[in-house]
């Protein structure tokens, strides 16, 4: 029954992706950014679905199982404020510049903003390296979930292969428009199913008041922050959501907006979507203690699956698996397409012989070839990587967040230079490697055990490097600055 539900769901995903192809115009711009025609609702669902990984949903429950209700403030409510604020100050400006100059990737923007090929290449390498763990998580997470829900009937490799084949089919066929349509469908699926699982499980346990009374008696420390989360961690964890400012896949989705006003609905509704997904995740993670006390380490990440299995098996278990698959694929598709776009535009078209004059049809062909190659490579890597890759992924978030001063300076600081940007990247690389080697084996690692997240230190160093590196070097050419700043832009200095 579970498998039947999952296959029905995957069939629907392919159907939605296939339907989107009817609007395909056959151009590179249409394949890579849907001809910049995406409306408010699709943009909201794409941005939210892309950013909300299965790892976030299952990992949030697992984290809440260990750390209690404080996880919501740590990971969810901070994102509810910071992510849409980044969309407002960064995303909309990126969209305007992208439309005006015809950018399809963020490397194109940074390369031209600071008139530096070398900077573009360095950034390309850093962004791809940071994104690889995410691709692996998606593919491995899909395999693990299916294996768990079917109690080992479906091997992990088969689940991973299924995710890759489905994503490859609709991304190759539908491009960004197909991705946006499928993302919308999948985001609605995992939001609705999360709510259903929440209501069903709480009802089975006797209702919210009964559950909270039991928790107050058995695990009262989970209902407060107490010693689980240090105040410095709550403060510095707010740096993590800045990563959306540098994610290639978020950049790509910003470029798809039909107009500036398209951002209005996503800006206002995004915080509510976060609450809708995270309230069930965190609550059920904490509630899991009543039925499954004593889970250690990563075993807690399966708490949602265990609860569903206990209280609502069969159809709902299948639907939950579909919801997790939805979250996996709605992130994986955008990430794969963004890397495919970067290889096509930033490497083949930029450096290849005759690349600048490449026909529209050939651009689409390259895009599809790269999407396929990346998924094949990711699947192979997922078969030889062990589960420690999940730890690496958490650190990737920190890397993207620490690069935020680059996009901020590019948009708001006229005096910033390519050397400032390169200094910023170098400082992030050095400090990221330093903290990673010190802390990646330690769950919940903070700087010297103070509660300060490493990302806060790397971000501060990155910002300082950008400022010092820019001020110590020759100001950019006025013509370059004029090209990217308007008199209306009060932020430019």
């Amino acid at each position: 029954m579970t498998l039947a539900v999952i296959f029905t769901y995957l069939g629907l995903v392919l159907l939605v992706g296939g339907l989107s192809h009817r609007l395909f115009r056959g151009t590179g711009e249409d394949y890579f950014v849907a001809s910049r025609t995406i409306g408010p609702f699709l943009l909201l669902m794409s941005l939210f679905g892309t950013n909300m990984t299965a790892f976030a949903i299952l990992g949030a429950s697992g984290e809440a199982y260990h750390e209690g209700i404080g996880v919501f403030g740590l990971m969810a409510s901070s994102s509810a404020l910071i992510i849409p604020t980044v969309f407002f100050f960064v995303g909309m400006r990126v969209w305007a510049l992208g439309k005006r100059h015809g950018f399809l990737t963020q490397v194109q923007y940074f390369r031209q903003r600071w008139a530096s090929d070398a900077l573009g290449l360095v950034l390309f390498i850093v962004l791809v390296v940071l994104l690889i763990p995410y691709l692996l998580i998606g593919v491995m997470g899909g395999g693990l979930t299916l294996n768990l829900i079917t109690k080992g009937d479906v091997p992990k490799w088969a689940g991973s292969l299924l995710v890759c084949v489905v994503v490859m089919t609709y991304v190759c066929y539908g491009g960004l428009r197909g991705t946006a349509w499928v993302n919308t469908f999948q985001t609605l699926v995992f939001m609705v199913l999360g709510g259903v699982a929440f209501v069903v499980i709480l009802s089975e346990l006797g209702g919210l008041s009964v559950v909270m009374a039991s928790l107050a008696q058995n695990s009262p420390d989970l209902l407060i922050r107490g010693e689980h989360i240090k105040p410095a961690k709550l403060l510095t964890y707010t740096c993590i959501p800045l990563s959306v400012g540098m994610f290639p896949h978020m950049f790509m989705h910003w470029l798809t907006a039909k107009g500036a006003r398209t951002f209005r609905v996503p800006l206002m509704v995004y915080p509510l979507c976060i609450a809708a997904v995270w309230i069930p995740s965190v609550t059920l993670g904490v509630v899991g203690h009543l039925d499954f006390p004593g889970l250690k380490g990563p075993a807690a990440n399966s708490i949602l699956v265990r609860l569903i299995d206990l209280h609502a098996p069969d159809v709902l278990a299948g639907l939950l698996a579909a919801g997790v698959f939805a979250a996996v694929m709605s992130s994986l598709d955008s990430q794969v397409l963004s890397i495919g776009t970067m290889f096509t535009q930033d490497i083949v078209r930029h450096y290849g012989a005759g690349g600048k004059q490449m026909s529209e049809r050939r651009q689409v062909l390259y895009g599809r070839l790269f999407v396929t190659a990346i998924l094949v490579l990711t699947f192979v890597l997922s078969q030889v990587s062990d589960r420690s890759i999940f730890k690496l992924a958490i650190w990737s978030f920190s890397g993207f967040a620490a690069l935020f001063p680059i996009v901020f300076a590019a948009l708001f600081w006229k005096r910033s230079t390519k050397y400032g940007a390169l200094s910023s990247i170098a400082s992030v690389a050095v400090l990221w490697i330093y903290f990673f080697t010190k802390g990646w084996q330690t769950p919940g690692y903070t700087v010297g055990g103070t509660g300060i997240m490493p990302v806060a230190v790397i971000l501060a160093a990155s910002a300082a490097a950008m400022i010092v590196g820019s001020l110590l070097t020759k100001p950019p050419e006025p013509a370059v600055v004029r090209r990217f700043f308007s008199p209306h832009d009060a932020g430019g200095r």
Partner: protein
Amino acid sequence: MNRTMPRWLLYLLILAMYILHNDLWLWDNPTLFFGLPVGFSYHIVFCLAAALLLTLLVNYAWPDHLEREADDDGNGGEQL
């Protein structure tokens, strides 16, 4: 756009919200509020407040010029 609220006030509100996110005063408070621990309920209300703040930004601090700039031909300066 008809503005009745200065931008700087809204930007200050973002900063105020950022500070209010650190609810140290509820750290060890197990009281239930709307059926959930108050430290949890507070952050749910915080999400609603964030949605309200973004609504204010959209209505009173909207960057009107972006739409015009996006439609420019992109030749504001020397081509690179």
